[in-house]
């Protein structure tokens, strides 16, 4: 297995937002989900995940709530706020435009 790709600065936020857009999740599940969905290509540095979550909460994109986890333990569940949803949409559009542009350059150059 090749070395997992380090996440580009700022993309972690986008991944977190996208992941919890479906349903509220706790931190561990977010990391798991990102790894699964990306077929083990993207490995979230688990330590960096929490500062990112706290920052997003501070910025008001997401909110946190304590709830019961699947193994009956107390866990902090994160979900998108209204403005977080809007922010995610615009960031996702940005990302798609950027990656398409980079792909274009790589193909033609």
């Amino acid at each position, binding site marked *: 297995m090749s070395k997992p790709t380090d996440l580009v600065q700022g993309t972690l936020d986008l991944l977190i937002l996208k992941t919890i857009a479906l349903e509220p999740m706790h*931190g561990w599940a977010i990391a798991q989900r990102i790894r699964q969905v990306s077929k083990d290509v993207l490995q979230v540095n688990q*330590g*960096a995940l*929490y500062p990112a979550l*706290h920052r997003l909460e*501070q*910025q008001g994109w997401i909110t946190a709530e304590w709830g019961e986890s699947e*193994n009956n333990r107390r866990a902090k569940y994160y979900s998108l706020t209204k403005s977080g949803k809007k922010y995610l949409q615009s960031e996702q559009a940005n990302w798609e435009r950027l990656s398409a542009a980079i792909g274009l350059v790589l193909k033609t150059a």
Partner: protein
Amino acid sequence: MRWLRSISNRLSNLFHKDTVEQETDQELRFHLEREITQRISHGMSPEEARRSALLEFGGVERFKEECREARGVNRIESLLSDLRYGLRSLRRSPGFTIVSVLTLALGIGANSAIFSMVNALLLHPYNFHNLDSLVRVWEDRGTQEGFDARFIAPADAEDLRSTNGVFEGLATYNYQSFGLGVEGDVLPILGCKVSANFFDVLAVTPAAGRLFTTAEEQPGADQVAILSYGSWQRRFGGDPHLLGKTITLNSRAYTIVGIVPKDFDYPVPVELWVPLALTPAEKADRTQLSLSALARLKTGISLSQAGAVLTTFSRRLEQEFPKTNAGRATSLLQLRKELYMFTLPLFLLLQAAAGFVLLLACANLANLVFARMIGRQREIALRAALGAGRARLGQLFLSETFLYSSAAGAVAIAVSFASVRALRTSIPTGWTKWVPGWDGIRVNGSVLAFTILAALGVGLFLGMATLLHTSRVELNKTLKETGTGTVTRTKRRVRSAVVVVQVMVALILLVCAGLTIQGFVRLANVYQGFEPASVLRIEISLPEKIYTDNLKITNFYQQVLRGTAALSGVQHASLVTNPPASNVDSDTTSFTIEGLAALKPTDLPSADLQIASPDFFGTLKIPFVTGHVFLDADNVDAPRVSVISRSMASRFWPKGDALGHRIRLGAQDSNEPWLTIVGVVGDVRQNWWNPVTRPVIYEPFAQAPQRSMTLLLRSTSNPTSYASAIRDVVRQSDPAIALRGINTLEEEIADSIAIVRIMGILMGIFGIVALSLSSLGVYGVLSESVAQRTHEIGIRLALGANPRDLMKLILGQALKLTGIGLLIAVPCAVAISRAMASLIFGVVSLDFAILGGFTVLLLLVALCAGYLPARRAIGVDPMVCLRYE
């Protein structure tokens, strides 16, 4: 709303620090547990799973710290600790704190007080709906000499109202004094006759009752009145059932139909308004400019558009009615601007002066802060060495300066409350009641906002100055130093610049203050040409319904004059239409000189017209130039005569042969009689704000009686003691007549220039504050720099330097800085004084005595400031100097 949540998050994080910390702990622990469970389920032993999970996770404590950072707790926490530190360090040096807070509070407080005045008088003189669209409209001959009263002919106003397309409405009004009948007595009150649409144009709705109807503009139907709120409260005790009741005005019964809102006092604070009911003849009049007019511009019409329409309008009238309207132009001016024509520059000057005082206070404080910073250099270097970045240091200094500037702001608010009260009570109410907006001077929301902004601005400015001063600390050097720290060349240059600016601002401020005070003194002496001492003035106004013909008027006044002259101690008693210092211009009239008839109506000369009884010139001791003044024989049966002023005589009869010539009021073919000039008297200054000496024509009262006259008497003793005696004299002739404006002429003069006097006093205070602040500042910087050179001076002395040379060196430095400041300031002061001379009456541009005097004064201050510390430094034993560290 996101930022709101962000802030509330931050604060709740801060206040629930422990819970939040625990939760983070719990969250991370949960994560690790899940990770371990997963690894065990993949077949690891519990020990191994725990080890590898922890390894992969990384330093837990580091991430906790990062979480804290992400939550933004740290920034607030460090700000709080900086504020606490700042508070401690200010408490450690109470002297510095008190001086800086008081200096700033004084500077900011002065600004808020003046701002509260400017805010009330200039920005909100009236609180009418859409004040900017209200204009005054008037007619004049287009050749304004000085300041003519702004009136319009009734027929012209009517035409303007019906034809123009620029005004939403045009209202006319006229003052009228009334005798209000109260229980057998008659009280004098001032009222205003207004057209029915007057209140509509101003968009005022009555507090109770109704406004006037158009039907009430008809003579006979006009016996209705609207009361002012104050009059309703004062005279009728706020009687809730007053509407519909009748009152007696000038012996006629008027029904009260309405009461205006509390703050309504246009055009001046009058007690009541009645309909302006003109007879058809009065309405058709185009010769007399007898009405005041105000109008509201239609939405979207600019002042210049309206001006253009008015020009066309006057031209049309000129063609239609050449006899009356030739050369007459219609003008307009915004209501707001009409008010402070004479005093606006003074207000602006005061605000600028207050700003300068604040600037000086800031400069002084910056100096103090710099001096403190030099003492704190080691602390700063240590902080920098321990990893404090510039932003972090900046936050520290900013929070310190914000601490005392906000303390200063709080004190300044108290100062401004006190000074606004002082300001309001220091001017006699008799005068300020005519100043619209004066009662609105108070510390309100915008003044508070202004104060707070000023305090914050000052804090920011000082913090930045401090930061600039501490940047580029040379860590190694400063930490190695054992002494009190060193001053680099750049820093010394910054402080020298502060001294230069201080000297500069001080000189400009002193010159402005000097000029204003000088202007005020000049104004106080401006009433020349007569002797105001020992003269009492009383305004008398006869009701036109009873005093219908000249004989009745003349009889009444002759009786009053005889009665007054018979009082013991009265030397002279006389009548005049417009006494000096009345703050009202005399009526102007055009006239024709016999034998110069070829003039077009537009080219007729004009002069002020005064009606006076024979002893008027003796009462005021107006010097008599040639010929003779009026005689008692110049009565209604005698040939018509006139006396003219010296400036009129010299303008129209430069050879000095005015006596015996005849003049006629109005044009050549007017119906006025020819008046023979029998005498020439000295010029009299009528009002302080009218700098032009206007020609005056005096007519004898007996030949041209008027209902409204001012009775003047000169006595050997205190003139005020005659007030009640005069009242009795008048009552004997007609008990229904009310007396108004009983005052000595001297007090009338003092009242008329009260606002200028207050301005002068304020400027004087600012000047003294400026002088002391800048002296302190210059002294502080110089003594500080000499103290820092004590070591160097010691070495020089030990090596055999001559103390006198050292003294010269230090004094030279002081003089150099002051000299540079003065060199920059002198041209500025000259320019400013020139601007002031063009804006403020009484100020003469560029007074060399003032400029030179203050320049020398500041140089002396600088010499003292340099000499005292230098003598101390030189007087010290060289050995002590060397050891001094």
